[in-house]
């Protein structure tokens, strides 16, 4: 049984919006709504969903970049609170991140060597002279970069090289869990494959756990053992890779998978929407306190129950969790 690294329970993150009128009640945008999540050592968990589903906000809350309004985050059994500086420092050493924009996530005024060195010094304290430079070079080599590139600035490197540098920075202090927030989405197709392979390698070599956030389902299928599907801040389905891609049960998961165009003209004719009624679930829905299921406006299987009662996550067997009132009745195969 591997150690449980991250345990999130009932996490809720809300952002204040403008009041209605001058003195009306303040409206809130609920970006993350009572989300549960676990990541064990060496495990790779994918979080998928479309814009407005809250996956980036979830990542930021886990990284202690935003303050949640509710719920708990436990790191290796210890409860994380933003005011516990010592515990936070320990967590930061072991929980690192790679962001979406490869060039933007590096300080343009620092060479990539300096950026990696900064991470090393911040997370592991002052180093003996020469030792730091050696470790930075080793980290760069590990991500497939020539250590001579350490003196270059981000704008002198390609997107793929910058992302490798960002990964080098993230792993230099040997973290146990790496959060990847759309880490390959901004890369060229041919480079994406390289970075995905790199992440996989690092995972296997160091037993690194991954929390991989992406809207690209094919990449998630390749990289992740377990998949969590978010919709408007709520978990609608959670299952192993095999279960989700072979037998998705939640109507949204099915719609999502059906909408992905296959790079195959013969099949492409079959790509289409699985009867989606209303096209745009605008994030504004996340502001009203929706009593029923968040997916209601777009769900072809909705019934009266769905309007009044929010579905809870139920175990459909084999560890597959679904939040849908009608999951038992819906046909299983895609």
């Amino acid at each position, binding site marked *: 049984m591997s150690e449980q690294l991250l345990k999130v329970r009932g996490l809720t993150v809300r952002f204040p919006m403008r009041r209605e009128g001058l003195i009306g009640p303040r409206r809130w945008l609920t970006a993350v709504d009572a989300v549960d999540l676990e990541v064990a050592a060496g495990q790779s968990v994918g979080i998928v969903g479309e814009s407005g589903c809250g996956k980036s906000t979830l990542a*930021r809350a886990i*990284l*202690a*970049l935003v303050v949640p309004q509710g719920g708990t985050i436990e790191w290796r059994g210890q409860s994380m609170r933003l005011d516990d500086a010592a515990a*936070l*420092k320990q967590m*930061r*050493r072991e929980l*690192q*991140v790679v*962001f*979406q*924009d490869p060039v*933007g*996530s*590096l*300080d*343009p*005024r*620092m*060479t990539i*060597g*300096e*950026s990696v*060195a*900064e*991470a090393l*010094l*911040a*997370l592991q304290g*002052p*180093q*003996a*002279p020469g*030792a*730091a*430079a050696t470790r*930075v070079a080793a980290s760069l080599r590990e991500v497939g970069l020539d250590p001579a590139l*350490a*003196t270059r*600035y981000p*704008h002198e490197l390609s997107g793929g090289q910058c992302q490798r540098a*960002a990964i080098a*920075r993230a792993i230099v202090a040997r973290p146990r869990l790496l959060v990847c927030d759309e880490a390959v989405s901004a890369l060229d197709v041919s480079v994406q494959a390289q970075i995905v392979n790199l992440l996989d390698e690092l995972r296997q070599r160091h037993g690194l756990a991954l929390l991989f956030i992406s809207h690209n389902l094919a990449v998630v299928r390749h990289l992740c053992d377990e998949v969590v599907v978010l919709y408007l801040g709520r978990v609608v389905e959670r299952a192993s890779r095999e279960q989700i891609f072979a037998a998705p049960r939640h109507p949204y998961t099915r719609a999502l998978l059906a909408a992905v165009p296959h790079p195959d003209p013969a099949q492409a004719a079959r790509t289409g929407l699985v009867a989606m009624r209303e096209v745009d679930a605008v994030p504004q829905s996340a502001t009203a306190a929706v009593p029923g299921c968040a997916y209601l406006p777009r769900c072809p299987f909705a019934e009266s129950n769905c309007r009044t009662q929010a579905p809870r996550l139920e175990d459909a067997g084999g560890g597959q969790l679904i939040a849908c009132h009608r999951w038992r009745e819906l046909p299983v195969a895609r």
Partner: protein
Amino acid sequence: MAGSTPASVMTDGGLWADARRRLRGNRAAVAAAVVVVLLVLAALLGPLVSPYALDHVDWTLSPLASPPSLEDAHWFGTDSNGRDLFVRVWSGTQVSLLVALLATAVSVVIGVAWGATAGYVGGRLDGWMMRVVDVLYALPYMFFVIILTVVFGRSLWLIFLAIGAVGWLTMARIVRGQALALRQREFVAAAVTLGLPAHQIIARHIVPNVLGTVIVYATLTVPQVILFESFLSFLGLGVQEPLTSLGRLVAEGALEMETAPWQLLAPSVVLATLLLALNFLGDGLRDALDPRQG
């Protein structure tokens, strides 16, 4: 402390070396820098080269105000009081430069620290800090300077304090705007996830990234300061006799423009050249300090 800052473990101040290299490649900026250096040297050496002292009245001349001539070593001519203009112009340049540089330095240091902190920390601290700026902005500036002069007497130091005390306000606003934008960038979020404390993030990530704008604005401030200082001098609040400044000389020379045009010519040419050169240099510095332009 060796081994404790990223720059020291990786290279020897690599960024500035890079900036120097870029600046050297910009011919207009290099020419401007040369001009500024020459003017500074002239300002320092000019009064030493001339046989005349700053306030020496040359009674041998008739009339007292006489045009430039080589024989009696009045190379720029003399002013209405018979004092040598060559010496006065270069002494005035010294004073103008000193006032401008010190006042700008004061406004940069205070403005950047204030603005970067307010912009990065945000929230209520930002609110309070910028309200202070707003209130100070609203104060009648001249009134403020007059009160200071009355309380502390007229002195050169007072002038730069007064100018600097107001100059930092706009700098703070500009830097705060930049800091707000920078705060959203992913590399700042990355720094937060490293567990760096706020003051380190401000010093290491925010300030260096606003330097480009700060430099450009500072070089725009210098001519403004020189002009403002001459206005003060004109009102009798600034540089006092026998010290003089470029602005003061230009103001005096303008009065005698029709009868003794040389009195206006020398200080104006020096002032205009100085301001032009500073502007070109400022542009060059901005390009050099912004890595993306390389």
